[in-house]
């Protein structure tokens, strides 16, 4: 029997979407619904697990299985589910506060374990749901509801954290760049192991335009480098600028002045994350920020495969457990 062909609309639940009008979350939801039918995974085999925050309402809007869990812990629920049900496609939906503040610990550990699931981190550099406090990704000096004199925290880069945890798939996209976002989500889904996609998401109520330098089409060309595996890093309206590696630094060069052979060629497959880490550290306004897939390393064993392989191996070598034998093990005696 041929599988029924699903459309984006089939993945919509019957619940009203309640984000603020104009919120970047809508576009991510739309792209997700568009990408899922292309993956060929049945709806009932798809699970969305989220933490708490505006973005974490996401599972309610999907006609799949879903769990809206507690703040920061979505990766752990997903780990337990995937470890026991490797047949399911599991997505984790989280925000910058959710994943990096309260959930920072779990974020690191799910990545280092390489559980085969996909994390989509909606980064609006603010706490949306609790109405506008600064988050771990808020720029230094920014005035928010909880930082009237400007934030004094140094911001965290989710991509750097992920690379430090030796994540096997690390990518970034933009809510407004829908085609690119769709492409990245699809690649994340196809990756075996934990994939992290950071999506710049505009919170037009509490942090409007925080990433306008990357989001707005006009500015994007000069402030963003679109990474492509095997291709040199070029950007600018007419691709007139490039990035090269000089010693231990990345440097912006004019292509008219430097031969293309000198430009850095992007290698997302490099198991050594050092250069990928340098890309993750490129930050506006001194450098253009990379979008696309920074790292996609295959062949690293996943946690779910390993936990299930051990069970399989134990059964093969010792046979299916016999409870009567187990409880009678060791020294026993008989009372007549």
């Amino acid at each position, binding site marked *: 029997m041929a599988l029924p062909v699903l459309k984006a609309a089939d993945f919509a639940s019957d619940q009203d979407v309640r984000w603020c009008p104009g919120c970047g979350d809508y576009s991510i939801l739309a792209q997700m619904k568009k990408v899922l039918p292309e993956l060929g995974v049945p709806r*009932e085999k798809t699970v969305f697990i989220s933490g708490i925050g505006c973005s974490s309402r996401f599972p309610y809007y999907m006609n799949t299985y*879903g769990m809206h*869990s507690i703040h920061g812990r979505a990766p752990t629920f997903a*780990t*337990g589910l995937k*470890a*026991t049900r490797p047949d399911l496609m599991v997505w984790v939906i989280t925000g910058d506060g959710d994943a990096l503040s309260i959930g920072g610990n779990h974020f690191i550990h799910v990545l280092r374990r390489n559980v085969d699931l996909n994390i989509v981190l909606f980064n609006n550099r603010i706490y949306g749901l609790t109405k506008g406090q600064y988050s771990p990704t808020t720029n230094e000096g920014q005035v928010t509801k909880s930082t009237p004199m400007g934030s004094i925290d140094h911001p965290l880069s989710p991509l750097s954290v992920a690379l430090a945890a030796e994540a096997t798939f690390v990518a970034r996209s933009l809510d407004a760049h829908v085609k690119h976002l769709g492409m990245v989500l699809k690649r994340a889904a196809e990756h075996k192991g934990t994939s992290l996609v950071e999506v710049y998401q505009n919170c037009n109520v509490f942090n409007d335009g925080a990433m306008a330098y990357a989001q707005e089409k006009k500015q994007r060309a000069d402030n963003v480098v679109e990474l492509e595996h095997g291709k040199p890093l070029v950007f600018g309206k007419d691709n007139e600028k490039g990035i090269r590696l000089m010693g231990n630094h990345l440097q912006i060069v004019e292509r008219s002045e430097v031969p293309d052979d000198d430009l850095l060629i992007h290698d997302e497959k490099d198991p050594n994350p050092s250069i990928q880490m340098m890309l993750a550290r490129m930050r506006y306004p001194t450098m253009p920020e990379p979008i696309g897939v920074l790292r996609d390393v295959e062949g690293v064993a996943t946690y779910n495969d390993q*936990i299930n392989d051990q069970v399989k191996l134990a059964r093969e070598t010792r046979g299916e457990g016999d409870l009567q034998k187990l409880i009678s093990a060791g020294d026993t005696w008989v009372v007549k």
Partner: protein
Amino acid sequence: MTTKDVKSVTGITVRLAGDSGDGMQLLGTQLTNTSALAGNDVATFPDFPAEIRAPRGTRAGVSGFQVQFAKEEIFTPGDTLDALVVMNPAALVTNIGDLRKGGILIANDDGFTDKDFKLAKVDANPLEATVINDSYRLFRVNMTELTRKAVSEHGLSPKVADRCKNFFAMGLVYWLFGRSLDPTLRFIEAKFGKKPEVASANEAALRAGWAYGETTEAFGESYQVEAAELEPGTYRNIMGNQALALGLVAASKLSNKELFYGTYPITPASDILHELTKHKNFGVRTFQAEDEIAAVCATIGAAFGGTMAVTASSGPGIALKAEAMGLGMMLELPMVVVNVQRGGPSTGLPTKTEQSDLLQSMFGRNGESPLPIIAPRSPADCFDMAIEAWRIAVECMVPVMLLSDGYIANGSEPWKLPEMAELPEIVVSHPEGADSDEPFLPYLRDENLSRPWAIPGTEGLMHRVGGLEKQHETGNVSYDPANHQFMVQTRANKVAKIAERIPEQDVVGETSGDLLVVSWGGTYGACLTAVRRCQEAGHRVSHAHIRYLNPLPRNIGDLLKSFDKVLVPELNMGQLRMLLRSEFLVDCIGFNKVQGKPFSVSELIEAIESHLPSAVPA
């Protein structure tokens, strides 16, 4: 066999005490197993310092293991000691108070040097003290030296050779109490078989200890405890945590489910993890998470997926799990949350026992968040209660709290092996897929008020769960005030209804009288023994031991009201008493102890008698 006189006795209580590096726990465990194999009833109480290696020879570093073995059925490791074995002065001064007058005191004389006196902060050799010599039957044995001689041919370094002295002590103790060396010889072979020189040295030390008892003039007689008259069946000796782990594996088999165990190491719960990891061929998956929050959340994830899901910790970790447990209650997913209690608050007394997390289990979550709570009463009972916890969890689609404690977890007793084929199946059903477009109702309830356990992967049953209040039946997010009240009430009713399906409270003794002793958890043995003694003395005292704490058995209110007085001994400041008083308006009297130690039978008898109409029975 021994040629000296053998004196027959009904029971013996021995404590072995030494430095935490001396192998006292090993010695105690061996003596216990050997005694159990000899058919005695046994009960144990290991007691060790929280520091892994407290400074050698100091009072803080004393590690003890107490075992009572008897020809009669016993329920406690005993109050006063018949025999005490001490390896150094620190062990002597911290334990001698528990040795009965005229009891046997065996000391490793080589451990009583000036240096050891300093470490133990004693002025002179306590073995020379007249009170010690007058009050007890003291045997001074040069264990270190005798051990060195016994193992000299085995080519071990002096340090390794000295480590064998616990086997020498074991041999001597075995001789004294007529125990067979065979089980321990088998143990040595299994444990040290890969290091033949260590195995043979330990064997030599063990035999030398035995021979010392047999040949030396010092010991006039040895003691023999006949086999106990236990119910017919096959037995093994089992520790609480081990029984709990096996109970979980059994529950998974009985429900035809694989087991997921998410946890983070903590004393005294870790041994459950250690045991479960051995049984992967039963479909057991263990997850050592990054913290307790991750552990419980992964457990909920596994439960959502349709697996038998269990998490365990001790009080501090349970505190961290609180938010997620509330979610588990809202999601109405079945799982078991084990709390092996220890002395609190905060990090408290990590290696000592207490029963002070009952109110945490009842109320330690935000909002109206009732959960069923059950508690095993003894090491072997952990097996049954683990199965019972999972049965309630699936019948009611709810996380169930299983409250063990350090005393049960590390204690051991003979366990009559159940016939697995005779244990009732735990029926689990998942709704089948539907290919209609009718929306699935994830919060439709059955006669138990349970919702269906629909699992991902099932066609047509797609649904979303979460911690936001949900609409009755549809499970959709709902802020409707009346719905919230209805759902809060429904969840409470669901837990309350469990009372219909658990046994009524049983009583040891008459169902009315002067005094009812009400206990729960690990104080069972001491309370039962104390009540029985009082009954034998002619008092109108009965005992009710509660294993189902929330909801309480349906007849318990009437029972409390049928006695003139109710005494509730607890190793906390009165937590069950508070619940009983508020629920039944019965003025229960508390008897409370928080010293990190279990109750002794004698202090309970004293407490009971102090509340009886006449202190001395007619």
